[in-house]
């Protein structure tokens, strides 16, 4: 069975990507909110925010990329939920295919769709004046962190996708994730926050991820932040993947 894993995953990935190509609105809605936040913060609030950076859009972009990922994974859960509900998931599971391919195809689709959204958001940021002198290696490091974070959140999204009773339930989990960057160093430096909020902000994953990406963009030496960021991503990935697999086993037995 597993000898067909790659072939079956590729076929099912092709199917999901075709879905996305035929409803590009999912990519558009994924990117609209982060872009709106970026416009709002750069052109409305930005002038009044002292970020300690010359260009606020440069300061802001890493946090906006995190919001893009968080809003993208709600569609991951939604697509999986639709497959569960329509019965096509059961049809695939009753066929002589590599069964885990069904799940992996959804995970890879999520990754591709979110990477496209990230490219769109970065392109808009460039139009708004975002500039970075980062070299190829730094850009690759940024891409690596974003891919890892996307995979971690995607596996979180698999859990409601498999177990939700309604479409609303399947996507509601992503809302708190979208707002997590607001209580971090993504929009303003944490120094001005009251102590309890500041403690939360400094010890939640978004701050270290945002700081690491920001350092890479501004060609600062990356300090311990990047290791904390990677530890968070890998940690979330392992925990979410484990719970997703438990949920999955429960659904197919």
């Amino acid at each position: 069975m597993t000898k067909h894993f790659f072939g079956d995953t590729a076929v099912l990935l092709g199917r999901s990507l075709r879905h996305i190509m035929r409803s590009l609105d999912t990519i558009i809605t994924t990117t609209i909110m982060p872009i709106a936040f970026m416009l709002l913060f750069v052109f409305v609030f930005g002038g009044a925010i002292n970020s300690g950076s010359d260009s606020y859009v440069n300061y802001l972009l890493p946090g906006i990329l995190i919001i893009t990922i968080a809003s993208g994974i709600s569609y991951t859960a939604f697509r999986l939920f639709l497959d569960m509900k329509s019965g096509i998931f059961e049809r695939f599971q009753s066929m002589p295919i590599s069964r885990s391919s069904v799940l992996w195809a959804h995970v890879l689709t999520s990754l591709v769709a979110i990477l496209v959204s990230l490219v769109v958001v970065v392109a808009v940021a460039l139009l708004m004046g975002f500039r970075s002198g980062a070299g190829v290696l730094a850009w690759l490091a940024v891409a690596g962190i974003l891919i890892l974070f996307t995979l971690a959140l995607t596996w979180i999204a698999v859990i409601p996708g498999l177990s939700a009773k309604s479409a609303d339930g399947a996507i509601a989990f992503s809302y708190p994730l979208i707002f997590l960057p607001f209580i971090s160093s993504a929009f303003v430096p944490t120094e001005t926050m009251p102590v309890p909020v500041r403690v939360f902000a400094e010890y939640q994953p978004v701050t270290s991820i945002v700081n690491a990406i920001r350092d890479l963009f501004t060609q600062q030496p990356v300090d311990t932040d990047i290791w904390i960021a990677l530890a968070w991503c890998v940690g979330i990935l392992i925990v979410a993947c484990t719970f997703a697999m438990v949920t999955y086993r429960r659904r197919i037995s």
Partner: protein
Amino acid sequence: MTANQTHRPAIHVRGLEKSYKKLEVLRGVDFDVARGSIFALLGSNGAGKATVVKILSTLLKADAGTASVNGFGVATHAADVRDSISLTGQFAAVDEILSGRENLVLIAHLRHLKDPGTIADDLLERFALTDAAARKVSTYSGGMRRRLDIAMSLIGNPQIIFLDEPTTGLDPQARIEVWQAVKEFAEHGTTVLLTTQDLDEAEQLADRVAILHQGRIIVNGTLTELKQLLPPAKVEYVEKQPTLEDVFFAIVGDDGKDGDARATAAASVRSSKEQR
């Protein structure tokens, strides 16, 4: 296929039990389905028909009892079972966003067959879907969707097909189209396990009928045997109103399995509604 397999029944179920938390759905189900026959599992809503099908198609694990499909235990040789079967679900599990042809090609790819395009085209022709091949399935009528669903189940020539309430929610003509399709592939030696709530459907299709009631098989036999159990027929004179089916065929004609003719009829009904 080994000689051993050919002599054993296609489906063999003994003492099957399944509960969802405290709700006992199956309480010791026994039946056999002979190779090449159509077996109808008849029962009301919630009798546990779908649960039996899910266990036999390896989607659900039984709490107790044994079941084998094509000679393979569903619990021990799930992969071999999946290699022998095809499942057509209660809610036609077709991909709404893909076209009819893409759906067929997808399944042919997943069954690792050569030349998925030709397989798809042949089935589209056989199920009178060629004209609608390139259209998104979401634009299909209920009957066309179910025909596509059944066509998808036939890819790879599975030896055993599970048809879980294949005509639920279909209009009379679409129902007859599905029946014709089932009869046709059953003639080629495919074993069919059919679940239905409809005695008429069982009568039309099945060689053997079992009635599932409150988690057990209460009757299992051929139609003739079953009819002997019923009270003798009485002759009564009742004024017969035309049924919806009669009205339908009077207007549409009963010759076609042409999906487009029905689509046109449906469209004209729709547009006359809109005009109102």
